[in-house]
């Protein structure tokens, strides 16, 4: 009964909050918040800026293709175009993941596969800070914090640059 009463209270609160959202004036964004996608690669937590991707997708159908690039899993169709899909874990130097979640970069050029989508973070800019190791990892330059939780921020442009760098290497061309 107590649990039921608690659920009723929560439902009542949710309903009021939902109804109140229509009565409130249009929000004015004073500070520019930063949006992150909180995800898990392998068993490690990471975050990706939403401004660096064009979308988040679950169950992206990937067709494997023969390739000499280890991180390249295959190709997938998205919005009528063909995209190469890479394993984000391998790109970060981790062991291969078996994820089905994917993000697509802001230029809709590459799909990046990872393990699990966990949450959506909206934090202030002062919650984003550089890494303590002085940018030892080339794809991770910043850390995002919400509440007491810290997550490395994966730089998608850096990832893309690395992919392009690999694609442009003479061995790969051959």
């Amino acid at each position, binding site marked *: 009964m107590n649990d039921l009463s608690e659920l009723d209270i929560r439902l009542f609160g*949710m309903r009021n909050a939902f109804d109140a*959202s229509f009565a409130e004036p*249009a929000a004015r964004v004073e500070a520019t918040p930063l949006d992150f996608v909180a995800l898990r690669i392998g068993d490690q937590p990471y975050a990706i800026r939403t401004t660096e991707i064009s979308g988040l997708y679950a169950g992206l159908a990937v067709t494997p293709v023969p390739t000499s690039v280890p991180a390249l899993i295959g190709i997938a169709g998205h919005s009528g175009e063909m995209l190469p899909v890479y394993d984000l874990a391998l790109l970060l130097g981790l062991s291969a993941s078996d994820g089905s979640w994917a993000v697509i970069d802001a230029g809709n050029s590459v799909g990046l596969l990872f393990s699990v989508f966990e949450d959506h973070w909206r934090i202030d800019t002062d919650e984003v800070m550089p890494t303590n190791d002085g940018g030892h990892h080339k794809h991770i330059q910043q850390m995002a914090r919400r509440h007491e939780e810290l997550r490395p921020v994966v730089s998608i442009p850096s990832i893309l640059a690395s992919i392009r760098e690999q694609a442009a290497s003479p061995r790969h061309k051959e």
Partner: protein
Amino acid sequence: MFADWTFGRRLAAAFTVAGIVFVCLITLAFLATNSLIANDATVSHTYAVKENLAQLLSDLKDAETGQRGYVITGDESYLEPYTAALPHITNVLGTLKTLTADNPHQQDRWGRIEPLIASKLAVLKQTIDLRRTQGFDAALAVVNNGSGKAVMDQIRGVLADADKEETDLLTQRNAATEQSATSAISVILWGGLAGAIATGLIGWFITRALSHQIGAAVGHVQSSSAELQAAATQQATGVKEQVTSMSEINTTISELLATSRQIAESAQRVTQISEQTTSAARSGDGTVDRANDSISGIRRQVDQVVGHMLDLGKKSQQIGAVLDIVTELAEQTNILSINATIEAVGAGESGKRFSIVADEIRKLADRVSISAKEIRALIDDVRSSVNTTVMATETGSKAVDSGTRQFGDVATLFREIASLVVTTTEAAREIELSTKQQATAVEQVNIAIANVAQATRETEASAGQTIQTATELATTSRDLLRLVKSKAA
């Protein structure tokens, strides 16, 4: 020969011998005395005859004196001696005849003297009559003729002869009497001496024999009294221990009696409880049947519960499937809201308001996702509970099956228990009866023990008395032995 004789037989023999000696002595003395008395009687008889002879002569003289006086004087008073002597003469003569009846010589003399006396008396009467009728002279003439004197002389001669014979007889009888006296004295003197010697010998013999025999017997009595004293002392000690033991036994019997009564009461309570148990077991038999029916009903209910639980599990699975759809929709909504946010950011300033709506949608999707997770958890709990319940119910169903079988066994056991309880009740009654009998027996034993204790106390007193008696007997036997030994010595 005499060694085997008893004490009484020896005394009887001794006194018999002494009695025989004294009887002989008395007989001899009696005979001697009797002879002496007989001789003395003959002497006295002789003296009596002599006295009558003298009396007869005196009476004749009195008659003659009276006759002379009257003749001389003519006075009648002088006739009184004459008158008195006449009948007396006849009597004395008769007495003499009687006294000398055994003597023919004297009887012959009396035959001769009787006419002489008659003649003399006739002369006297004649002279008296003549003096009275004719006077003195006539009478004197008759006296002078001497007839009277002659007769008187004859009478005197006869009486002198008779007296002489009696004197001779007296002499003989005195000698015989003296001899009888001597014999009697000898018999009494020597017989008494012989009796005394015989009695002394018998006494010595008896004393010697009895001293030996009594001394030995007294010695035995002394040793026996000492043994009796020791035995009585030992008996007194044993009796004291027995008194103590009897007291302890009495106490123990009292405790045993109390215990027996407690056992009897307990057995009675056990009987009551057994009877109640029998009644309960009988009612429990019906209860077992009803419980068996109830278990069968429970079995059916459990089957229904299992069915409902399985349906509930299926419904939970369906809810889970629906919830998967809801969760999927929430995730997709979340993804769409994120993507909408990304698109809104891409739209620049005009997309900010849309970004806010997208954010609200994302929050709503988050809430839906959270609620879906909670529902998932609840569904999982429900399914787990259903599975647990189904398993528990199936286990319960199996337990009910097992319980039904076991309950059948219990019912069978219950009937056996009821039967055994009946047997137990009978046994408890027997125990109660036996214990009551035992209590009664113990009471009787208690009474008997009390009697035995009383008898033991009396025995103790008797043992004390026996000790005292044995001590006195020992003292007496010592004194007696000392007396016997000193007498024997």
